[in-house]
């Protein structure tokens, strides 16, 4: 049976059209997936920047309060030094007989306990800032790679970043210190020795 060349041509053309359509569909799907991934990376970068801003603000607050506490402590210590010279107190026992020294040492203990907690939080927040910067770099690198290859699996990184940001959001809302916490309170003897030795 002879085939009509026109029919054959029509069939071929039809098949070619189908293949082209499939190809276009595949390319389109791939492009759409790539665009979606890039959008996700961009959103993550934005979230990282916001988180870094939040952490920096929290760290600045901690640093400001810490500086004020240190100012308080220095003023208290200056008063102690003055009283110490005035009454010529050498030992802690002699010093504690002077009410101002006794009270100031107690206040310095309180301030030191708060300062220790603030320093710890500050260290945590500074580490968080470093970590966020590192993530930012990684996400930027992945974005470049994605743009180049149109495909990259960043799901593990993005999940780590998500967890970190969530945790940091949470950590930035908890108090920087807890009053009445006994940890980090220096002993009176230690404080006194530091004052006497001018440390």
């Amino acid at each position, binding site marked *: 049976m002879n085939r009509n060349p026109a029919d054959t041509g029509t069939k071929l053309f039809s098949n070619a059209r189908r293949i082209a359509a499939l190809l276009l569909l595949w390319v389109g799907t791939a492009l759409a997936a790539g665009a979606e991934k890039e959008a996700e990376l961009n959103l993550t970068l934005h979230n990282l920047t916001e988180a870094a801003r939040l952490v920096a603000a929290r760290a600045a*607050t*901690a640093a400001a*309060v810490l500086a*004020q*506490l240190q100012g*308080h402590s220095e003023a*208290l210590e200056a008063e102690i030094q003055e009283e110490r010279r005035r009454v010529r107190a050498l030992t802690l026992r002699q010093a504690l007989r002077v*009410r*101002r020294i006794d*009270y100031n040492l*107690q*206040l310095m203990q*309180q*301030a030191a306990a*708060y300062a220790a*907690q*603030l320093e*710890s*939080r500050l*260290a*945590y927040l500074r*580490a*968080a800032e470093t*970590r966020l910067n590192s993530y930012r770099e990684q996400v930027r690198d992945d974005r470049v790679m994605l743009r180049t290859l149109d495909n990259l699996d960043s799901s593990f990184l993005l*999940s*780590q970043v998500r*967890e*970190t940001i*969530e*945790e*940091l959001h*949470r*950590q930035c809302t*908890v*108090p*920087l*210190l*807890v*009053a*009445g*916490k006994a940890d980090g309170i220096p002993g009176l003897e230690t404080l006194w020795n530091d004052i006497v030795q001018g440390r």
Partner: protein
Amino acid sequence: METDSQHDDTPSIPAQRTPAKRTIALAALVAIAVVCAAAAGVWLHAHKPQLIPADAAPGDGVDLNAPPEPKPIAPVSAQTASPDEDAAAVKARLNDLDQLRQVLESKKSAILQAKHDYRYGILELEDETRRVIRHARIDSVGQALKHSGVESLLRNIQRRQIYFEALDQPLGWIESASEGLLYVGRRAAIDLLVQDVAAGVDMRGHLMAIGQALERYQPNPGRLSIDPASIPAASLEVIAKGLIEQARTLGGIPADRRRPEIEAEICSGNLSRAAELSTLSLRGARCLAESDAKQLFLNRLSELTPLGAEALSKWTGEWLCVNGIARLDPEAAAHLFAWRGRWLSLNGLVDLPPETGKHLAGWDGRQLELMGLRQTADASDLAKWESRGGRLFVPDAIRSAIDRAGAQ
């Protein structure tokens, strides 16, 4: 019998009722929906679903060397006001603490002044007692106690000594109270500083502590009372013995028979014979200092003791002439050059030792006469005083030394 027209009308009745029924049905549906929504709201409110648990542990994938997360400590006392309200209340109460401290500090100053006055009063009485002892040639405690004038002076000394000591009781209380208030206030201030970033700050506790301190440290008469009977006073015999000894060995102020009389006049406000004084008792110096005179001419005085100079330094007049003084003890100079008058004549002064010169350099007066000055270890003190704008009168030799010091 029904007509066609009635049949035609029959379906028209339901046709007219349908919209009304639909409206009712719709309203019922809306009401049911509102009730359901309200019920759901109540249920959600009661169960408060939390997206993030309050005590959730840090994420497993996060390792930032995280310190244990601070957890708020529930305040011990029952809370009726918000933490912010408590903090505002604490701030307001801190002002009350400051005010009470000011009251206490003012009371402390008054007590210190009273102690100073008693101390000076004792010295005055001792001065007078020594004079009477010498004048009456008393050389034993028995004689002193039998002498009515001396015995009276001794009793006054004893009483003032007791009062002087007794004032230490309220003074100690005030100092303790003042320190207590300062401590309570500072402790609260530190917590106010961290309050916005801390958990467990017990502002209510601070409020209570401040309230208690304000009550405990109110300087009421009961708390400031003195108990003279509890002060171990020196006996009259001991006081007399010491003064007889001093009158014999130290000599005290050289005899000046007219002095008691002139000083009595001065103390009663008549200064007409003040210039005749060749010696000055502490009482006399105090009465001169209390006078309203603008000028004092005490040129026959040849000596000025530190205590006498201290008393005179409180005089509020303008011109003090003490040209009979040839030498000025550094301690007396410290008091004399603390005097706030304008014009000082010390033309009998022949020598200006370095320590005396240093006190002179700090004097705030406008004119200084030192025309008797023969030598000075360091003219720079004079140059320094003059450079502050004062007028200095000195002999030519001293002027040359000042010029040289100024040129260097």
